């Protein structure tokens, strides 16, 4: 059994036309058939409202309105079609502070460019298989910024009575 990606839709928001087309071709090779493209964040939000995609892949740095502005709109605009949609943010930035900045705006996954097809697939699979619960703290609305660890990942001393420690 494999994913039936042709049942889901994706919106790509990327101002560099060849990059948007390349990302679309990669997604089509994976099996997606409904892929919408916008070349600026404003049009991206319009298409988001029109098509209500199941996944958004956006570039960070675009014209007047950035990918982060788009994430804010999708997450916080009262008219947003789906505030909980998984959003993958693509960017050339790889510095930890930048990743934290994106996470604090409500990005689901971060994809550093240049990327491989496997990198993109991994982020999509993460959105499908391990979506995080959402937090609304008033100041922040988005996926929980603490990614849950599997219980058996803990390597420290066991101190609880139940653990036999």
């Amino acid at each position, binding site marked *: *059994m*494999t*994913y*039936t*990606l042709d*049942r*889901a839709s994706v919106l790509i928001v990327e101002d*560099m036309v*060849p*990059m948007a087309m*390349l990302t679309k*071709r*990669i997604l089509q*090779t*994976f*099996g997606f058939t409904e892929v919408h493209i916008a070349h600026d964040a404003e049009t991206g939000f319009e298409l988001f409202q029109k098509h209500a995609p*199941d*996944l958004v892949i956006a570039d960070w*740095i675009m014209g007047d309105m950035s990918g982060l502005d788009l994430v804010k709109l999708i997450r916080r605009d009262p008219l947003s079609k789906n505030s*909980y949609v*998984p959003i993958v943010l*693509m*960017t*050339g*930035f790889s*510095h930890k502070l930048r990743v934290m900045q994106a996470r604090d705006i409500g990005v689901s996954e971060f994809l550093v*460019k*240049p*990327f*491989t*097809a*496997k990198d*993109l*697939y991994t982020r999509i*699979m993460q*959105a*499908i*298989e391990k*979506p995080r*619960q*959402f*937090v*609304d*703290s*008033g100041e922040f609305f988005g996926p*929980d910024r603490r990614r849950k660890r599997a219980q058996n990942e803990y390597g420290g001393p066991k101190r609880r009575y139940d653990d036999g420690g």
Partner: protein
Amino acid sequence: MRFATPKNTLKEKVGSGGIPEERIKRAEEVIEKCDVGFSSYIHKSVEVMCDIIATEHTDDLSETKRQLLIKEVMTMKAHGKMFSFPLVSALSNEVLQIFDIAQRVNADLIDIIKVYIQSLQLIADNQIQSYNNEAGQSIAEALCAACGRYVQKYG
């Protein structure tokens, strides 16, 4: 603080099982074979960067111009390797690391940017896509040496 577990509509639609490895390989080939004439984008970026450093009359560039330069270098780093110019991504990454430690854009940093611009021009004019050849290696060495000198002085 409120917590919510939204309905996973993406999972409901696509089901389980992942995608076959062979499809990922084919997607990697899509990237490898992508030819968009990236040289013209390099030339455009070179023009923009030349304008940024040419129009400034003081020794230090303003923060706005610093950000514009970072944006250009970042764009080259992000897209070079995606469009068959891994050398462009590698060189741009070196320069971005210098921007990380640079407090301001002074004459020394502008010198590095000039070397970077010359490197990009050479790469675009001569279609030097990777560092696995003599020309690519010497370009990379020249820029790395300039970056090394900067790090020694300021790092």
